[in-house]
């Protein structure tokens, strides 16, 4: 059993490495797939495992974009001059400035978002259920509006970043591996985390927060740490996106609450909340669905997406993973006697 699992993981890892070379035309789509996996897995850390459905995780994505961009620009030029609508001067970056900017920017984005999660969490974790969801959504919307009126960072114009120096196809592979590295790290990290005492504690918060508190779990601390960890990864993903997209603006790209902000939740619901593989499977299915509808049913894509959400919520509340556990419990090591199983059906 364990051996089988190791082979499975090795195969997936091998595929991760080969994919951009095997499907060179889909480099960007594969990179975006990893982005979806990252945001879905991190959303599930609070949403699925801890019972706090955040609609504000997109805040960390957008903030990550800005922080990464500002770090990489600010090291070389004056940010106000670089983003000025009035132009002036020519701003170019050397290879060293570019790569060190990407590295420091992405890392800085993770750290900054992680800290801001603690600060925002301190206020919003007093809210429960739908109030938490709306509260965090409010944070993301407000942040987008504030940034879009902040001239120093370009305001509504957004920021244009320098492109990958060198062959654009190599650039695609570069960004694919950046996303993949963060994605694999998130997966390995949460897989480990959910098996520790910490994982049990956040599950306890999900199942009954009062009881968890009564058992001596410092719930606020656990909630803050969990969200902060999620924010670290989302912030890094945002940072990578900034360099990959080259240009972003505050409301539609960075703090895109109704797009990626909702997509990450749909991915998790589709795949199965509170499971390890659910968000991954959900992200893959959702991304495939999105690419197919956006390419072949253009004009109807939003209708199709709406239909997908309705069908998922009405018929597959536990997502693909939940459905599989129900239909094929033996795959998950759950022993069910035939007779009893027969009766329940």
């Amino acid at each position, binding site marked *: 059993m364990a051996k089988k699992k190791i082979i499975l993981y090795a195969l997936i890892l091998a595929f991760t490495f080969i994919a951009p070379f095997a499907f060179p*035309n889909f480099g*960007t789509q594969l990179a975006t797939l990893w982005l979806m996996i990252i945001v879905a897995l991190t959303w599930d850390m609070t949403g699925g495992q801890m019972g706090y459905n955040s609609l504000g995780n997109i805040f960390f994505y957008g903030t990550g974009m800005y922080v990464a961009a500002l770090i990489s620009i600010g090291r070389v030029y004056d940010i106000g001059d*670089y*983003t*000025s*609508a*009035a*132009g*002036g*001067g*020519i*701003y*170019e970056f050397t290879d060293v400035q570019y790569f060190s900017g990407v590295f420091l920017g992405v890392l800085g984005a993770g750290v900054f978002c992680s800290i801001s999660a603690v600060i925002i969490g301190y206020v919003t974790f007093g809210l429960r259920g739908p109030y938490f969801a709306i509260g965090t959504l409010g944070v993301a919307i407000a942040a987008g509006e504030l940034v*879009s*009126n902040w*001239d120093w960072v370009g*305001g*509504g*114009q*957004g920021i*244009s*970043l*320098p*492109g*990958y120096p060198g062959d*654009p196809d190599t*650039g695609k592979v570069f960004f694919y591996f950046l996303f993949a590295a963060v994605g694999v790290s998130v997966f390995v990290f949460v897989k480990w985390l959910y098996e520790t005492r910490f994982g049990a504690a956040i599950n306890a918060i999900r199942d009954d927060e009062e009881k968890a508190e009564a058992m001596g779990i410092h719930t606020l601390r656990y909630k803050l740490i969990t969200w902060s960890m999620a924010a670290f990864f989302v912030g890094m993903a945002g940072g990578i996106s900034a360099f990959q*997209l*080259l*240009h*972003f*603006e505050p*409301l*539609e*790209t960075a703090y*895109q609450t109704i797009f990626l902000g909702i997509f990450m939740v749909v991915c998790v619901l589709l795949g199965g909340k509170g499971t390890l593989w659910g968000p991954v499977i959900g992200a893959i299915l959702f991304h495939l669905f999105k690419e197919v509808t956006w390419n072949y049913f253009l004009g109807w894509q939003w209708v199709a997406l709406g239909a997908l959400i309705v069908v998922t919520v009405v018929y597959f509340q536990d997502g693909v993973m939940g459905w599989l556990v129900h239909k094929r419990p033996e795959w998950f090591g759950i022993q069910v006697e035939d007779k009893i199983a027969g009766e329940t059906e």
Partner: protein
Amino acid sequence: MKKTTLLTGLLAGSAMLISQGALAASCGEIVIGSAISLTGKYATNGVHAQKGYEYAITKIRENGGVKVGGKCYNFKVIYYDDESKGDRGATLAERLISQDKVQYMLGPYSSGLTKAIAPITEKYQIPMVEAEGASRSLFNKGYKYLFAVLSTSEQYLASAVSLAAEKAKEQGKSPSSVKVAIAVENDPFSLDIRAGVSEDAAKFGMKVVVDEKLPRDLSDMSAILTKVKLLKPDLLIVSGHSKGAATAVRQIKEQNIKVPMIAITHCEAADVTGKFGDAANDFLCSTQWSETLAYKDSLFGTAAEYEIGFKNAYPEYKAKKVPYQTAQATAAVYVYKDAFERANSLDKEKVRDALTKTDMQTFYGGIKFSKAGNNIAKPMVLRQIQNGEYNVVAPSAFASHKLNWPRN
């Protein structure tokens, strides 16, 4: 027997197909890609620009095509609708280049979209001649494949500021007593308009009393106008593409706002005279081009002839002005024709090098690119809507009419 008949038939058939094909393909095809706003908040101008492109393509085809290496070619543009959204525009540019394999691009509508797409074309080293992105922030990133036929945005309303200063002097007041109100869209184009106006106002020592941004969907500026009513500025500047222009003219009338001088952008594109009639009178409108100017070239004729030709091709424009957005889109295609012919090659690097050396006179004005890619050979003019007519009032070298002042 049967087989031979079939074979002969097939042969004859294919021979016919080939000859037909040869007739149609007497000219080759140069494929250009363009993501353009056919829906969303920039749809009006996106369509103006697309028609400008198509008119140029037809006109070039009718006049023998593009001559490269002794062969003739016609342009064909693959369009995608970017829904007026930057990220969508960038994705489509990527798609045009990687999947449709286009080697040349025509610009989208608006500075914002151009800003989203230019990094992509730059990344793939695909030349993009654009006609609708004027913000100076496009020309400070060191782009080597971006060429803009239009004048940059700070020049749009600069003459309005000097006119206001002139009028103050005539009244025996100091130009520094002029109060300016600015309401602009939160996008690269309008923010650069604002930057330009603020710079000019500062030169005269004028005071900016209102400095507001239009809401995102550009459909309501009544709160800003209330403020304007209260603070009584001498000059009101509004910039928000066509939708912003329509909103401004409509609400200034509805709220009965009296400001001696109001200068806005995109009057013709929004067809404010057709939509609002007298309410549009005495508005100052910046324009990249006017059909009354004395520009001309061998393909499109004079500016006035261009307007007539275009109206004949697109009768829906008969009752209104041909907006400059259309004229400059046509000019962009014309620039490509010129560059291809001078490069005498279909190699994108050679065409790009030819583009940098562009120096031509067109019905749209002179076109010559700076190192940064913006056109430095053409001035902007300011027109005033006088009894429903667009008359050039500034700069004085082009002025055909006197300024009506104060408004109302």
